[in-house]
């Protein structure tokens, strides 16, 4: 026995018992802890466990296609892969970034910037680093799943516009849902969802967008999919059939290529828009993937405003096309006898100021129209005649009739952001400028200048409505548009007859401003307009710079009364309406009738089949030029 053990029998029993109590107490304490988690907060933790292992992977529903009136595809969708960068693990990410950038052909610094921008978003939310993955990219991701575990693929549905920029302005484009939309949608949208941003994509977004499906999968702690729980299939968006006729659209696009302007063709009997062009335009395919910020900036600041749909948004002076409204107002109001004749010496003095007729500026031929009645005033587009009747009618009568015929009102076309144009009146100057109407202003208004502005779609509807006896229909691009709205302003038969005869004469009578464009077997009628941007005096002083060239208008239709088709053409800085704009209207109306007779027109057949019209006849007509009230300097 070791010496240190002597007298070592007495044990501290009390303290041992104390320790055994302590041990029991500790065990009970631990059990209370487990009880709290497992019984009291069990539901909460079950929830967390569920969220841990279940991942919901959206299955993107393809957007509906857009078809033309005959079922030809104008817009569709195709599946494509986006490459995502997972950001959960900063360490792996840092290591993997250079090889990922290299493998996918991306700039490593760009990638770092993207990561920097996403810094504030939750770490588990991956970012898209390559929206449109190529086959090689897909192979790269698949083969580096283990050594570069930061890449993931996501299938998306990409919008495709097979005809590029064709119909681009009307179709609009899609893009990622904006933060504001996201908030307003009340959970309907998730970040990154694709929605219609402009044009028909926006207008009919509810029909076009499908319902995304959802695949719920079980994942393990490293995010690897273990098995699928359930699948909710995506419901594809519904197709939208448009009233657009691909053939007419192609011709309109070809005619306007390289120009600045718009074309709108419609069937005034039912409001079907057959073609709608606005140039210059963008290729919506550029927006389908992701538009770089600088490109977007460029498009928005481009002086040619390619994002503007000129057919419904360009509010410009309609020029002489407005004379049809003047003529209608004159006949309907009976404020001026319909037999009125005016002598046009090429200029006239109204309210103490000299106004010139366009013919005064003509380079060849007579510098005056001589004695004109209403019919010749329309066919020759005599300004002096309309100055005179405008003065006699006064602004109240003009604006009442013009407004009743649709000027200054939106047509209600089924596209976002239509503009309404402007029909000035005494009320309007009072309201906006707080002053009285100057009688002299009426003179400019009488020939569609001054403060009068209109959009091409408005002009198409107004002119077709007058030719239809005062029935103004709501234009629309949706084939099954429910009950297009109709405004009726019944016109007397004699008024309609006289005015439409005038418009028929414009094309079909010698001396008509567009008489070189006559069509065989078709009652092609219409009215040209050449709206100046600045006074000719001033323009001559500045030199003939393009930006001050006149805007060319032509609103054509056929047949002479109760037309089946009306075409409004605007060519900005195109010069003379009858030369720059009327041939486009003629091409479309000709194609419309060719098609009706069983020929399929194409831009080529049209160009080859008939020599371009303007060269054929150049009868009496001097270059159709328009004069100008020296005083009016509106754009």
């Amino acid at each position, binding site marked *: *026995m*070791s010496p*240190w*053990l*002597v*007298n*070592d*029998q*007495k*044990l*501290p*029993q009390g*303290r*041992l018992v104390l*320790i*055994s109590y302590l*041990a*029991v107490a*500790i*065990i009970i304490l*631990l*059990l209370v*802890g*487990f*009880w*709290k*988690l*497992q*019984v009291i*907060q*069990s539901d*909460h*933790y*079950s929830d*967390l*466990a*569920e969220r*841990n*292992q279940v991942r919901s992977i959206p299955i993107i529903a393809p957007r509906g296609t857009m078809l033309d009136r005959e079922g030809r595809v104008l817009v569709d969708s195709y599946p494509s892969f986006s490459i995502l960068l997972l950001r*959960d693990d900063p360490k792996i990410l840092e290591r993997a970034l250079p090889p990922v950038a290299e493998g996918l052909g991306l700039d490593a610094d760009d990638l770092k910037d993207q990561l920097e921008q996403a810094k504030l978003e939750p*770490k*588990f939310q991956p970012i898209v680093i390559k929206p449109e993955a190529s086959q090689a990219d897909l192979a790269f991701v698949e083969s580096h799943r283990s050594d570069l575990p930061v890449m993931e693929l996501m299938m998306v549905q990409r919008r495709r516009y097979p005809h590029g920029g064709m119909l681009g302005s009307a179709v609009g484009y899609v893009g990622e849902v904006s933060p504001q939309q996201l908030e307003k949608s009340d959970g309907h949208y998730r970040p990154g969802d694709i929605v219609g941003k402009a044009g028909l994509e926006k207008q009919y977004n509810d029909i076009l967008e499908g319902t995304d499906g959802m695949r719920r999968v*079980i*994942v*393990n*702690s*490293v995010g690897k999919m*273990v098995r699928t729980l359930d699948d909710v299939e995506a419901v594809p968006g519904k197709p939208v059939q448009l009233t657009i006729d691909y053939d007419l659209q192609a011709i309109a696009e070809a005619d306007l290529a390289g120009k600045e302007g718009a074309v709108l063709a419609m069937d005034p009997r039912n409001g079907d828009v057959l073609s709608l062009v606005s140039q210059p335009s963008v290729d919506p395919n550029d927006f389908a993937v992701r538009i770089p910020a600088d490109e977007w900036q460029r498009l928005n600041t481009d002086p040619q405003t390619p994002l503007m749909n000129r057919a419904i948004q360009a509010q410009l002076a309609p020029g002489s096309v407005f004379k049809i409204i003047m003529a209608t107002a004159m006949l309907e109001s009976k404020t001026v006898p319909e037999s009125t004749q005016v002598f046009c010496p090429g200029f006239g003095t109204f309210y103490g100021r000299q106004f010139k007729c366009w013919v005064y500026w003509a380079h060849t031929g007579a510098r005056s129209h001589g004695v004109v009645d209403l019919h010749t005033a329309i066919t020759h587009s005599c300004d002096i005649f309309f100055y005179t009747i405008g003065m006699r009618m006064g602004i109240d009568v003009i604006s009442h009739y013009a407004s009743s015929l649709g000027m200054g009102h939106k047509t209600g076309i089924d596209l976002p952001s239509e503009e309404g144009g402007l029909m000035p009146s005494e009320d309007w100057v009072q309201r906006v400028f707080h002053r009285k109407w100057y009688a002299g202003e009426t003179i400019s208004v009488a020939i569609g200048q001054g403060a009068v502005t209109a959009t091409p779609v408005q002009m198409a509807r107004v002119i077709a409505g007058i030719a239809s006896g005062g029935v103004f229909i709501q234009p629309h691009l949706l084939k099954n548009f429910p009950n297009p709205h109709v405004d009726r302003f019944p016109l007397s038969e004699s008024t309609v007859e006289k005015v439409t005869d005038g418009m028929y004469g414009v094309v079909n009578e010698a001396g008509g401003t567009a008489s070189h464009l006559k069509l065989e077997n078709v009652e092609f009628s219409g009215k040209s307009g050449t709206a100046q941007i600045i006074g000719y005096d001033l323009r001559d002083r500045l030199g003939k710079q393009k930006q001050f060239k006149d805007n060319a208008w032509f609103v054509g239709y056929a047949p002479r009364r109760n037309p089946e088709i009306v075409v409004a053409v605007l060519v900005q800085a195109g010069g003379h309406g009858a030369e720059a704009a009327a041939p486009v209207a003629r091409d479309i109306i000709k194609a419309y009738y060719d098609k009706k007779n069983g020929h399929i027109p194409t831009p080529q057949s049209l160009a080859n089949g008939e020599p371009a019209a303007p060269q054929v006849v150049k009868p009496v007509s001097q270059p159709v030029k328009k004069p100008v009230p020296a005083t009016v300097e509106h754009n």
Partner: protein
Amino acid sequence: MKERSGLFDFDWPLLAIAFAICGVGMLEIYSSTHNSPMHGMQWRQAAWIGLGVVGMLVLSRIDYHGLLDQAPLIYAVGSFLLVVVLIIGHSRFGAKRWIAIGGGVNLQVSEIMKLVIILMLGRFFSEVRTDSLTLQDLVKSAGLTAIPVLLILKQPDLGTAMVLLSVAVVGAFLAGIDWRHGIVVVLLVALVLPIGWHALKPFQKARLVTFMKPEDNPRGAGYQVLQSEIAVGSGGFWGKGFGKGSQNQLGFVPVRYSDFILAALAEEQGFAGVFVVMLLYAGLLLRLIENAQKAKDRAGMFVVMGVAAIIGFHVFVNAAMVIGKMPVTGIPLPLMSYGGSATSFVFLALGLVMSVRSRRFVN
């Protein structure tokens, strides 16, 4: 001097409890790993248990007085080995704890040190003969504890260092520490803690910060604790069933076959399972304390209570960690967690207890 045979005088109920815990552990190791590349781990654990049992048999045959006689020498060798570890030991998980002893087996010296400190302090406190601990003796025992604790902290292994301290605390209490001294010690510790903070390694600091505010970094250090809590909480009262815990099976629970095995069990067997396991540990501890009460001398009591202190401390810290009430310190659950050194240690410690028990009638 009559000596009853030690071979059949084992504390059979105590051993039954220990084996029951081992069995539950092996089942849960199986459940946690059978779907992973680590499957079959329960058999390796069985091998460790077997090895431990052999060690226990051997140790139980040795008179603990002989071991206590040699305690200073054992203590010196153990401390020396700790120094060796710091110099030539190799690192795993960022800490130098292992010495390769050939054949691919690595020895964790700090596990052995647990046995060593039990013997050394047992020897020291039984030499204090009176029923009260003088300040001088308290300081001496603190010094004896401090050497291995500091060496282990240097590895760094905060958990094991704390385990050694628990032996000293229980020993000092049983040796009759003056309560005023006790208060002074507590105050001193409170003073030293902030200084000690600076001595901690970054990952230790991270663990402590995580423990204080787990929600700050759900994907980082707090992730383990959170996932453990989710596993425990989602288990509910009856559990999700054997092999059906999603947190466990899908690998969300960290080291679910070892340090966090209680979380895996809590998920699959629920509160009911935890209750049974806790009952087993309570039985184990009370049975150990009973052995201490019946020990023949103070030396035997100190040895048994040293073992009880270590096992109790492990259970408390591990279970509290699993439910997020303690920082993650790498302290396994005795006999349940997978681990060779840890499992062997417990059986060797039980061998010491048997040695004390079999000599309780010896005069």
